[in-house]
């Protein structure tokens, strides 16, 4: 019978596919490295891994596991089924949680005893982003602090002096300049359009503004909640002024250009607070000549307390707890990390800014500002409860301010979230 024949064929096919699966034998010297790199970035990542394997000369081998979507879901699933990848990338805000849950290895001793990759090589702020209760749980491989990109052409058109590449504005000065840059312009077809001073649409994050007022979300001790402190509220008032003074397109408007950075690229916003690795310069080489413009750089503004901070987006490589006792694993981790530092990314290593230009020649002009930004770079004080608190700060506070900047009572909301956060901490 035809049906039976078909069924038999399918069954055979299934058996073949089933047998084709090699159960990745967990040998002592075979490591799986999970990464969110995909597409072109994955091709580069695999070159690095191949290089590492070649250098290891059979002592160990590393295999890449690319997770192109829902990275942390797949990761958690793998961990929960005892299939944890040996190494994986992790963004700073999750490290304390994974450490707290005992999923990743404490690397403090190993880092301190290392000969090639010791803690003092890193910027302090960067390494701090990979700690939990003063222990190191990850090796940072990327640090991407904020700086201000500005459109020199638009500054010239309004007759505004270019800012210093190393001396920051105050936030008030930043807002004043942005106001001057908020003007009606005419496009090639003679249609009027609004040019804005900058774009704030949930980015930069709320920490940036709390720091601007001299406040913070959580104190360094990881226990005190500072969301409703006078300084943090002061910082929120800076954010509120930015949102109400018309220097940024409204929240509902920003997405009409896809995302915030496009406003800067299309010269609709004169200043953009972006990571030092944003690739405007490289992108621009592919545009028509009349669309290109000169980019200038200045560090993030100085806050009310006289300190300037640049929010630093960092990510680290962490090691599964399963490999805690395997010295070869740490060896591999170190070798890979050293290779990462030669990659296109800005390395988190102190005093090696020049490498940025070696890796990306377009960043030559930005070098002074990048150096300054790395010095003032910092992360938030992450705790295991971070996601829950941060989620409320975003959904209830920031989104509220963005959707109704004129009427939203952000002080009351900040107080409410502060109480919520204290309550979360008390649950410990």
């Amino acid at each position: 019978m035809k049906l039976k024949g078909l069924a038999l064929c399918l069954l055979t096919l299934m058996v073949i596919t089933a047998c084709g699966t090699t159960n990745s034998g967990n040998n002592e010297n075979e490591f799986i490295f999970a990464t969110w790199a995909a597409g072109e970035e994955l091709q580069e990542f695999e070159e690095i891994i191949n290089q590492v394997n070649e250098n290891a000369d059979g002592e160990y081998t590393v295999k890449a596991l690319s997770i192109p979507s829902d990275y942390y879901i797949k990761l958690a699933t793998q961990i929960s089924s005892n299939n944890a990848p040996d190494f994986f990338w992790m963004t700073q805000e999750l490290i304390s949680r994974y450490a707290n849950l005992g999923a990743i290895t404490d690397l403090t001793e190993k880092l301190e005893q290392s000969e090639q990759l010791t803690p003092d090589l890193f910027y302090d702020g960067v390494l701090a982003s990979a700690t939990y209760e003063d222990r190191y749980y990850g090796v940072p491989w990327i640090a991407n602090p904020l700086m201000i990109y500005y459109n020199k052409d638009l500054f010239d058109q309004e007759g505004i002096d270019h800012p210093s590449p190393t001396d920051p504005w105050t936030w008030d000065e930043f807002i004043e300049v942005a106001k001057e840059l908020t003007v009606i312009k005419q496009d090639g077809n003679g249609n009027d359009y609004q040019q804005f001073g900058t774009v704030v649409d949930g980015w930069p994050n709320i920490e940036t503004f709390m720091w601007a007022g001299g406040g913070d979300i959580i104190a360094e001790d990881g226990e005190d909640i500072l969301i409703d402190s006078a300084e943090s509220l002061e910082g929120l008032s800076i954010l509120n002024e930015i949102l109400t003074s018309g220097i940024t397109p409204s929240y509902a408007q920003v997405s009409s250009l896809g995302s915030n950075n496009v406003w800067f690229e299309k010269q609709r916003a004169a200043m953009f607070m972006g990571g030092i690795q944003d690739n405007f310069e490289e992108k621009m080489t592919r545009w028509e000549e009349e669309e290109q413009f000169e980019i200038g750089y200045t560090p993030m503004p100085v806050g009310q307390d006289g300190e300037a901070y640049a929010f630093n987006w960092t990510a680290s490589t962490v090691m599964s707890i399963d490999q805690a006792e395997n010295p070869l694993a740490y060896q591999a981790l170190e070798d890979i990390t050293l290779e990462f530092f030669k990659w296109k990314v800005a390395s988190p290593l102190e005093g090696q800014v020049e490498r940025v230009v070696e890796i990306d020649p377009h960043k030559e002009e930005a070098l002074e500002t990048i150096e300054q930004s790395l010095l003032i770079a910092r992360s938030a004080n992450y705790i295991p409860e971070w996601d829950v608190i941060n989620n409320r700060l975003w959904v209830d506070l920031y989104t509220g301010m963005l959707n109704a900047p004129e009427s939203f009572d952000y002080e009351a909301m900040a107080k409410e979230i502060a109480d919520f956060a204290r309550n979360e901490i008390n649950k410990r």
Partner: protein
Amino acid sequence: MNSNSRKVRINKAILYLVLSLGSVLMLLPFFWMISTALKPDNAIFTVPIQWFPQTLYLNNFIRAMEVVPIMRYMFNTFLIAALKIFGEVFVSALVAYGFARFNFKYKNILFMVLLATMMLPYEVTMIPTFIIWSRLGFADSYVPLILPAYFGSASFIFFLRMYFQTYPKELEESALIDGASYLQIFIRIFVPLSKAALMTIGMWSFMGTWNDLLGQLIYINSPEKYTIQLGLASFSNMTGETLWGPLMAASFIALIPVILILLFAQRYFTEGVKMSGIKG
């Protein structure tokens, strides 16, 4: 008679007009997809939106192929879909036939259980299911994606049961008198009568495989086993930056086989002249 045929023609014209207007609405996202695929990076987001590309920019298609082995991933997805579809359609029909045409103990309770299995969100059973499969040694394999299909799919069974129930009792009674077994009745009478319904769930089964991201993401590790959805996901990175042009080019390529299958399958939904009269 003349005025009547004129009326028919006007009706037809109105019908075509309504359908065409509706089609424009339906095609809007696809139009945007193609239009984006043909634009260079900096022409994608403009104010106001640029519906038509100013030049035909084909580089996105080349780049899409470089970033991701689309053809390989499409082949893998087809393989999974093909292995699944037979089991999912045939077994679901078999089970639906059992629920629709027989009375047995606990039937209604069992049917409620069947419906209930669709009501617990997949998100919370996903990890336990994954753990079971990986204990059984099926990590990084298509088996967990395919094998369950051979035990029927609840929503397909539900649909077909409802469909089989509408046939009159006489349908199998006369065949029984001729000495046919129930299995023979199912295969020789019900399957041919229900071609359109079976085609429908066949489409759903295929589409389910084609659009499943989370399941494939969880179970597959090796890049050479990746599917089209995992490939499409590779065009966006962790920080939310997306290569829109190449992504839309790749999405377009991935859509072509689906549309071809749809065009082929839709003819089964044409009013069946032969069979009318049997039902009711």
